[in-house]
């Protein structure tokens, strides 16, 4: 406990409190280092976009932060809590939300039930048994459904939604969790132009008052939202900074933007 306290003091002395501090993060699969000695910091209310060519390790970084993949070495601190030692569900309860690349929703349940399951209450076995669908839950679900343009589909089975609607539903499921750090993996991939525009709008409303890490290929979209951009290449950081600076970086143009 004392050691823990001591590290807290040290990080406190190191200046601005980061919401998320990734330091020396490494993971190797059979000798292949998918993420190699990676360090970066995300501030509160910052919107960070990670870009990079395929296989650069972008999704793996998110997997490491949310505990889906175990790090070989390094640390991930979220509000000064070490995440690498926690289980996935503990990380979620600590306030980290994650959206997957492919829409990941429960097709056999209705939109309402999808959102209800994500509502952060009654998460234990007996809590779930005793869970009551009270006014607070219904109100919150309806509010979120409104935000994600699905108010009319509330009682439809999720499998009948369109691809874009499924993406929105998953975003809504995260929203109802109200995480402090939201991680989105290619939220506009596979969408029509109209859906894409609507999604950008949606993302712009939900990323307020929280920190967000986004993986995205759509440069127009990145330019719109990013406070800071991190460019990954072969598991390492190639460049980091504001969009304009990164776009002008010759190394970045060489490996990524130039193509």
């Amino acid at each position, binding site marked *: 406990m004392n050691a823990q306290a001591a590290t807290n003091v040290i990080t406190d002395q190191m200046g601005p409190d980061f919401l998320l501090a990734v330091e020396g993060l490494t993971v190797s699969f059979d000798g292949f280092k998918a993420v190699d000695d990676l360090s970066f910091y995300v501030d509160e209310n910052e919107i960070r976009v990670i870009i990079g060519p395929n296989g650069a390790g972008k999704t793996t970084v998110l997997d490491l932060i949310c505990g889906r993949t175990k790090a070989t070495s390094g640390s991930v601190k979220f509000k000064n809590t070490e995440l690498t030692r926690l*289980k996935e569900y503990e990380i*979620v309860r600590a306030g980290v939300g994650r959206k997957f690349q492919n829409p990941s929703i429960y097709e056999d349940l209705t939109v309402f*039930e999808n959102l*209800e399951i*994500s509502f952060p209450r009654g998460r234990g076995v007996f809590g779930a048994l005793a869970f009551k669908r009270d006014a607070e839950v219904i109100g919150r679900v309806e509010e979120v459904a409104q935000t994600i343009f699905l108010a009319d589909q509330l009682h439809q089975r999720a499998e009948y939604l369109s691809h874009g609607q499924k993406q929105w539903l*998953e975003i809504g499921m995260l929203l109802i969790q109200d995480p402090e750090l939201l991680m989105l993996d290619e939220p506009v991939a596979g969408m029509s132009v109209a859906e894409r525009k609507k999604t950008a709008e949606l993302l712009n409303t939900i990323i307020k008052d929280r920190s967000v890490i986004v993986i995205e290929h759509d440069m127009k979209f990145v330019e719109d939202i990013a406070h800071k951009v991190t460019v990954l290449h072969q598991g390492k950081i190639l460049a980091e900074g504001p969009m304009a600076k990164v776009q002008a970086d010759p190394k970045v143009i060489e490996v990524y933007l130039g193509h």
Partner: protein
Amino acid sequence: MTQALSPRFKNLIGLLLLAVLLAVVLPLVLEPFRLNMVGKYLTYAFVAVGLVLCWGNAGILSLGQGVFFGLGGYAMAMYLKLQSSTLEATKIQSTPGIPDFMDWNQITELPFFWVPFKSLPLSLLAVVLVPMAFAFIVSFPMFKRRVGGVYFAIITQALAAIMTILIVGQQGYTGGINGITDLRTLAGWDIRTDSAKTILYFVNVALLLGAIGLCLLVRGSKLGRILVAMRDKEDRVRFSGYDVASFKVFVFCLAAALAGVGGAMFTLQVGFMSPSFVGIVPSIEMVIYTAVGGRLSLFGAVYGTLLVNWAKTSFSESFPELWLFGLGALFIAVVLLFPNGLAGLYRSHVEPRIDAFLGRKGRSGSTPAPAPAE
């Protein structure tokens, strides 16, 4: 699609119809011997109902439910055996007061794990708690390490094999291959008479209806929806802040407890317990009851159990050769042709007609058509 009846209302009607069939119709039309046989089948239905939650809803296929059925059955049998092994009844043994098979195996003292079974309340607790505890020990490490699917199925099957070999091998403590036989009284009440068997049948039916009611409640809660969600997208549930493993452990333990109750009722109604209800073969047969009934339907599980066992009995009586062919074909057919079992057939053929009928007449309170699949 028009929804003529709400799901909750349909469940109530289903429960009511099942109650009428089991508690009124069958006792009226069947002679005591056949009724006792139905009672025996219904003890398997406890396992089948548990498998609906475990396999149908949560996607966990256990091929070792016989183990839990056996644990419950043996717990009850041990109590009954001690009841009938009074000093008076066993005075010709070299060690009076212990079960006869122990005496035959040169055991001179009641083994320590038999001692609690002198008490009825402790034995009744053991019927539920021992299977649950064993299920917990088995499933907790596996679900924590995300062992699932076929691996879980194989390991539970291995457990069924181990349990049988152990029971058969440790004759002196378990009664060996013959099991625990010659059971007479429950707290002094003779369970072998016709009237006792009829009473036990009704107790069994009441417990089974209670078990189904309990499962309906579990399924109707948020936990039920989480189980469905887990079967579909386990990772998403995990990343919604749920400890997926503990939900699986819960459902597996619940199914084990139900199987244990079924086993105990089996011992009471049939009058003995033996390893032939524990091993690989009975365990997988219990899965087929659920599959025939429709793996998602709690009521279907009961009808499936009755149907398969009725077929088994009638075939074995007339064409013993054919039964294994029939059972084998049933396994294949239910997987390839009717993956939703009787409940699926009911839903696609019978229910739309009932809905249409009720829709035309308005909700005039007319009773729906008879229960599916008799």
